């Protein structure tokens, strides 16, 4: 538990960034899908570019973890679900104005009705787990 406690701190920083940059705003998400501001594209694009450069440096310099382990990066595999599930996810994203990170952040920020969306998302995963083997993958 103690060794995991640092992740609570990292999560708090992430949540605060999401709040301060208004990424968790329903209005910002509608604005993004209407292409009426660069803001959200800048946030996501800025994160991707920074992440990309970081991963490149880690690979090139063969940087290890602080415990001296080899860093393992496992790419996700393609299934039909990536497309079908992706579109479903996108609809939910525009409906609630939030993806999973912001759902947690909004509930933390006291937007209690968003808790309905978070509980529904957990239920959605549960339903997926039940019907998973019947779906095209």
């Amino acid at each position, binding site marked *: 538990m103690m060794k995991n406690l640092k992740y609570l701190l990292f999560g708090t920083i992430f949540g605060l960034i999401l709040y301060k940059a208004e990424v968790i705003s329903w209005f910002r998400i509608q604005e993004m899908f209407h292409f009426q501001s660069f803001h959200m594209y800048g946030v996501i694009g800025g994160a991707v570019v920074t992440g990309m450069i970081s991963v490149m440096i880690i690979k090139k310099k063969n940087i290890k973890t602080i415990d001296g382990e080899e860093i393992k990066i496992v790419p996700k595999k393609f299934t039909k679900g990536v497309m079908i599930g992706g579109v479903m996810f996108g609809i939910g994203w525009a409906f609630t104005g939030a993806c999973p990170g912001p759902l947690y952040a909004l509930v933390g920020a006291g937007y209690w*009705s968003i808790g309905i969306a978070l509980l529904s998302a957990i239920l959605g995963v549960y339903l997926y787990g039940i019907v998973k083997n019947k779906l095209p993958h």
Partner: protein
Amino acid sequence: MIEFLSQPWPWYVAGPLIGLLIPLLLIVGNKPFGVSSTLRDICAATLPKVTDYFKYNWKEKTWNLLFVTGIALGGLLGSTVFKNPEPIAISTETKSDLNQLGIQNFEGYVPSDLFAWENIGFSSLVLLIGGGLLIGFGTRYADGCTSGHSIFGLSILNWVSLVATIGFFIGGLLASWIILPLILG
């Protein structure tokens, strides 16, 4: 510093800071950045394990459950100590588009016309419950969300994550331009 903490952060501050979480998580604990798998962990930890999908040792994901608890704490910190000025400065075009959907109040982070307790009606529930179900089901079917695919996946140059991100946007555009006006109109 106080000035900085009481103002909204521009994209060129927030974007790179979020991106730095990727090497931070990798170097500190060899962990991939991604939020939505915690929804599965919560199922595995709290609900009956009806299928194999939930039969795994979710305790190994304690780190990520703490991470998302932190996200909620970050939201709490933001909304109390480091509050942003409101209403958010969204574009006037977006405002007039949303006005047409009956949204008048732009205070706060979610439209109180839809999501304040006293205003919750049928269409609000469609958005919250329907949207939540689609997020949960969709993100596990697609094996990732905005963080795991659009940020981490694209950062490691995985084409699968590009496909997922395009899917997210097709769904979002469909909902924002066509389905939302149908529900709220």
